[in-house]
């Protein structure tokens, strides 16, 4: 079965630095990979989607890469701010959309 891992459960970085979060999967190559942000007590909010034939996607200070050889996606937040502190979830879709799984999430804390 597909197993998804995200780097450490919690990540602390200094304001202004680049935060890099990882999402690794074990088996089936996903057709899509999505990243969401979740704040305490709220539902996830969509950030970026990358397809299996795309290497990189950007949106403002966010960048996602997708390496199907390494079975890994990296999520970068440049010039991080305390307001970026949240849990970030990756989600994989494969098998023509019949399978959809969220990773366990990484809790990011950006320290002022």
């Amino acid at each position, binding site marked *: 079965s597909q197993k998804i891992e995200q780097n450490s459960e919690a990540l602390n970085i200094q304001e202004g630095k680049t935060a890099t979060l990882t999402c690794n999967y074990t088996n089936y190559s996903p057709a899509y990979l999505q990243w969401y942000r979740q704040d305490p007590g709220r539902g996830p*909010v969509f950030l970026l989607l990358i397809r299996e034939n795309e290497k990189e996607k950007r949106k403002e200070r966010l960048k996602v890469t997708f390496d199907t050889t390494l079975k890994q996606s990296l999520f970068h937040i440049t010039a991080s701010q305390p307001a970026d502190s949240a849990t970030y979830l990756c989600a994989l879709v494969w098998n023509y959309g019949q399978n959809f799984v969220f990773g366990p999430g990484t809790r990011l804390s950006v320290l002022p």
Partner: protein
Amino acid sequence: DTAVSQTPKYLVTQMGNDKSIKCEQNLGHDTMYWYKQDSKKFLKIMFSYNNKELIINETVPNRFSPKSPDKAHLNLHINSLELGDSAVYFCASSQGRGLGGVEQFFGPGTRLTVL
């Protein structure tokens, strides 16, 4: 205007009871979902409906029954509640047939506590 709304926000009930959670979206989306987020924060898909048709039905106990009266509503009914059902339940919706190729919009969640 709230895009995806759920009621109630909190639900505390005794074991063995039957309860329902309601979800409505005003985005005009065709696909709606129910997710369960347990105490370890794992977010797991339970059901997906497209235009009132069930398209994803993960392995959940048949005590859980989704009902979609129209494409803007997807309610979750739970029979004979058990302690392990305690979790936060999220409703979500997306354009088209969904299933990962598009973004999902999540509701605020319903925290269910079974005593």
